[in-house]
């Protein structure tokens, strides 16, 4: 039974979906920019888990999923770096990281 | 099934015991070493040569109350020491102490050590942020910049080595260095390693000091500036576990240096048998050097530390990487 879980594609897909949904929920529910960034990372890792699962169970090329995941990592790292520097720049100028307080940014 | 479980548990216990024993006795080595560098005697009351001092220290720390000050984040505060200790212990899994003496001979051993070592920073960070102390927070900010700055040259030198040896399996890496000390990566006299490897060794050693927060790079602790840095609010076993984690990290660093550059369990002369003894001897020489350095130098200034990394270590390790690549291409 236990082994059954780890060798089932569905387990991974559901976990992936769960992470993705958590990310979506967090994005909607968090007001602070850093919270949103964290949720974004969750969305990305949900996608990665899916990629890896397909890579293991379905894909014709045994490396494509892994490479996708590695690229996602690269993108995520870049995204985190950029997002954080934006957050810091925003914080420096507006003294807040609350997205709803940043009305000035509009227009 | 049961035998497998027992084997697993035996390994686990063995590793934890080794890590804990080494970490504890490293404290003894540190104190004794410091004493002799300063022409004192050091611990001498508990047991012969003060050998039972670590136990006494441990007992003392355990009997002390773990104070949780007001305003701290209690969960993070308690978890953080474990986050420093556990990954360090995990890293021991893949270290080849002898030819057949490794808990797991993993193909990606080197990567695994680095991966787990990187968690250490997170533990320090959460601990210092969680303890809601200004000194700790300053220390945390330092730890981040320091670790990021020094991870780069460390990985670069390690990658150059991986390129030269064509493996990330630590045991295999040691095997490749067999046949006398002139085959060690440090001074490989064959044409398979680039001539810059001794410099790479120095860089690796320096970064190892920095990554393990050892003097002269002990920014996180910096007792004369930040009181006790990240550990300011910790007492009792919380502090003890942090301390163990730090020392376990040093043992890992020393072991890794031994494996990568000093031929691990290979004997220095071809006619002597290979044995775990060689590994331990080399590792303890490295550890002694670490202690020696600590009790010789003043602490670096923070920007000097970053300058050293960005202006000296990273360029040189990049050059080393390129030279190694060229070397491999030519020979």
């Amino acid at each position, binding site marked *: 039974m236990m082994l059954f879980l780890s060798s089932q594609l569905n387990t991974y897909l559901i976990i992936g979906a769960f992470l993705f949904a958590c990310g979506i929920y967090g994005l909607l529910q968090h007001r602070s920019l850093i919270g949103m960034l964290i949720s974004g990372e969750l969305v990305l890792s949900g996608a990665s888990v899916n990629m890896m699962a397909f890579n293991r169970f379905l894909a014709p090329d045994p490396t494509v999923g892994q490479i996708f995941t590695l690229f996602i990592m690269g993108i995520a790292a870049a995204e985190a770096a950029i997002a954080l520097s934006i957050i810091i720049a925003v914080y420096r100028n507006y003294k807040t990281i609350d997205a709803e307080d940043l009305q000035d940014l509009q227009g | 099934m049961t035998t497998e479980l027992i084997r697993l548990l035996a390994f686990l216990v063995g590793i934890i015991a080794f890590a804990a024993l080494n970490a504890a006795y490293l404290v003894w080595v540190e104190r004794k070493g410091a*004493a002799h*560098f*300063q*022409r*004192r*005697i050091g611990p001498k009351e508990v047991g012969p040569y003060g050998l039972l001092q670590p136990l006494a220290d441990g007992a003392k720390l355990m009997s002390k109350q773990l104070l949780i000050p007001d305003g701290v984040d209690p969960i993070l505060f308690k978890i953080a020491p474990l986050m420093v200790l556990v990954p360090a212990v995990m890293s021991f899994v893949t270290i080849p102490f002898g030819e057949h003496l490794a808990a797991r001979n993993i193909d990606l051993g080197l990567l695994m050590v680095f991966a787990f070592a990187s968690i250490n920073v997170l533990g320090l960070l959460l601990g210092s942020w969680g303890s809601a102390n200004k000194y700790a927070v300053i220390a945390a900010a330092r730890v981040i910049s320091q670790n990021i700055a020094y991870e780069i040259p460390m990985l670069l030198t390690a990658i150059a080595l991986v390129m030269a040896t064509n493996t990330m399996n630590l045991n295999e890496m040691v095997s490749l260095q067999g046949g006398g000390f002139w085959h060690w990566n440090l001074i490989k006299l064959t044409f398979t390693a680039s001539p810059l490897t001794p410099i790479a060794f120095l860089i690796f050693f320096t970064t190892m000091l920095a990554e393990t927060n050892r003097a002269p790079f002990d920014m996180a602790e910096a007792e004369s500036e930040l009181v006790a840095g990240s550990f300011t609010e910790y007492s009792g076993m919380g502090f003890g576990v942090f301390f163990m984690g730090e020392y376990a990290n040093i043992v890992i660093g020393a072991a890794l240096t031994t494996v990568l550059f000093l031929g691990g369990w290979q004997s220095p002369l071809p006619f002597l048998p290979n044995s775990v003894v060689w590994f331990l001897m080399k590792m303890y020489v490295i550890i002694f050097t670490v202690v*020696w350095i600590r009790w*010789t*130098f003043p602490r670096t200034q923070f920007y000097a530390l970053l300058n050293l990394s960005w202006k*000296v270590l990273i360029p040189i390790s990049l050059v080393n990487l390129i030279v190694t690549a060229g070397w491999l291409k030519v020979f």
Partner: protein
Amino acid sequence: MAYFNELYSGTKSLFIGMGITIKEFFKPVVTLQYPHESLTMTARFRGHIELVRDLESGGNKCIVCGMCQKACPSGCITGNGEKREGVKGKVLTEYTLDFTKCSLCGMCVESCKPAAIQFSKDYNLAGPSREAYIYDLLKRLEEQK
């Protein structure tokens, strides 16, 4: 070029430093293992004061002139004497030193004309309470017999 020069000289200075400490490592220790060994105090060591035994009479030499009390900056000496029949001058009946106040300056010994007080060589001073530091020097002198 300056970059490499600094790199070279800097690294060299580090190795020189390490050379010095390793040399010291193998030199004998210079510390004294205190509870097991202890120092003998020099002849002029200024410990707390004690009364000097008068070798002729076996008692003290104090003439109860009060000079030590006057000289003491912190007022930690209390001495009293009384007139006794058949004895020339006053006889010391009480001589206490409140060591909690004493600053070990030695003014009292200096001011003592008959050299009736001297410094003890006692430096392991510890006690459970403040009262333990109020020394009855007369009693001490008796006990020393």
